[in-house]
């Protein structure tokens, strides 16, 4: 026979219910906190821009804009495609803080008379000027960016290309300790890009060393990157360590990853759709609606002659 429980030992009903309610409140609060942090973890809020790096010693030789209003520093430095760090555009800024930009050298060689490895500080001594350009990503968003830099032609001229050189190949730094793997990014590293020589020495083509008069933020391709404003953004290779002149079309990363989606030329062209989406319009960051995409990203007068007689649907 079980021991008899004294009435005084039995928890009275009110306390019992209170205790249950207390537990329920705990479960409710705990589950809501867990759901909130899980959602925040997978979907972090847009971060604030990190502190701008020191002002570079650059001459502000005045804007060459066409009445373009640049995007804000916050927009330009917190929405980046830099697959070596992250495939999430809002996560790049924090992760790219790991990039080591000093010492930094850029090897320039291949089919040239005077191959040379430049220290980044030598390249910063080239006359720096501000260029306000439209920037059109292949993902159908765009910005206006006040770059600081110098024409690539100046660098190429200084190493004296051979007459046989017809293309320029570029390579991004790959630091496997500080950057993620090719497997995580889904594209091969080191990232490589290329231009035809006449595109490379076009006056609009610059090597950019900064933006908004400040040194290039890591996430935007510090310490030196290419900017080719009439082509989709991925052509404007970041954090360059090597520039080689060659006589044949060099391999380019996105083209190798998916040749039917990304051509060697990749000129901004509203009439050639990406196989999976239209390129006829774009969202300017900071705007809600879409605006029409311009042929050659609005630089048709300057660059169309480079492609006269070419079928731009075939050579997309």
């Amino acid at each position, binding site marked *: 026979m079980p021991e008899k429980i004294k009435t005084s030992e039995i928890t009275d009903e009110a306390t019992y219910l209170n205790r249950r309610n207390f537990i*329920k409140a705990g*479960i*409710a609060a705990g*589950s*809501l906190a867990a*759901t*909130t942090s899980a*959602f*925040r973890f*997978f*979907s972090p*809020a*847009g971060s604030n821009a990190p502190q701008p790096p020191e002002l570079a010693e650059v001459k502000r030789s005045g804007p060459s804009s066409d009445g373009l209003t640049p*995007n804000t520093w*916050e*927009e330009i430095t*917190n*929405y980046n495609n830099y*697959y070596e760090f992250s*495939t*999430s*555009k*809002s996560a790049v800024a924090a992760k790219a803080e790991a990039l080591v930009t000093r010492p930094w050298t850029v090897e320039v060689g291949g089919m040239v008379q005077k191959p040379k490895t430049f220290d980044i500080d030598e390249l910063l001594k080239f006359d720096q000027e501000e260029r306000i350009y439209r920037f059109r990503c292949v*993902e159908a*968003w765009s910005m206006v960016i006040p770059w600081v830099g110098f024409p690539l032609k100046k660098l190429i001229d200084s190493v004296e290309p051979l007459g046989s050189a017809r293309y320029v190949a570029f390579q991004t730094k790959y630091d496997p300790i500080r950057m993620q793997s090719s497997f*995580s*990014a*889904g*594209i091969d590293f080191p990232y490589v890009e290329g231009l035809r020589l006449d595109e490379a020495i076009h006056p609009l083509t610059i090597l950019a060393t900064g933006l908004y008069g400040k040194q290039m933020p890591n996430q935007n391709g510090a310490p030196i990157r290419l900017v080719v404003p009439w082509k989709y953004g991925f052509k404007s290779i970041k954090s360059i360590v090597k520039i080689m002149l060659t006589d044949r079309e060099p391999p380019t990363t996105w083209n190798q*990853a*998916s040749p039917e989606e990304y051509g060697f030329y990749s000129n901004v062209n509203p009439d050639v*759709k990406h196989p*999976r*989406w*239209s390129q006829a319009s774009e*969202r300017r*960051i*900071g705007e*809600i*609606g*879409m605006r029409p995409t311009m042929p050659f990203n609005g630089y048709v007068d300057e660059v169309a002659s480079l492609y006269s007689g070419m079928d731009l649907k075939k050579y997309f």
Partner: protein
Amino acid sequence: MSDVRFYKTLLWLNSLVPVTILGWDAWNHRLGANPIEYFLRATGIMTLVFILATMLITPLRKWFGWNQLIKYRRTVGLFAFFYGLIHFTTYIAFDRSLDLAGTVDDVIQRPFIALGMAALLMMVPLAVTSTNAMIKRMGGKRWQMLHRLIYLSAAAGVVHFWMIVKSDVFYPAIFAAVLLVMLGVRAYFALQGRKTASAKA
């Protein structure tokens, strides 16, 4: 408050957390440089999460005998539809600026959008027939047949997600893997059911 009522309320509150945070962030301009893309991505992912969660309930009941879970499946399913609707409305209102002709063009040019719309359309009859009265009217068998549409809707949704990314298929791959497990489990159950049936006969 009964336990079922309590857990239902809890489910509701938790399911509303993502949309609350998104609304709060949008109000405070904290959705990043491309808020429309951010909002579309987050609501799209939530739709897939809820669809796959409804598909998880049957295996959990069979494996662990958690039969109580069936009481919450309708709510989970309706939240999938809710997030799908927000996703779709955001696309129409902001991405397309309510330009219907442009939307038709967009659907033709971007097959992944057609797939997404198909996935949402398939959820409409499921949402409409989710009430007890409709289950009774249709009869359990027919109702169940119709609600197998969720498999197709889920598949269309996952492919829709897969097609928008450039090379970072990590998250789409996770959703695809979960979906394949869910479908595989059902194929296994069906086979087992057939075996038991033939053994009895």
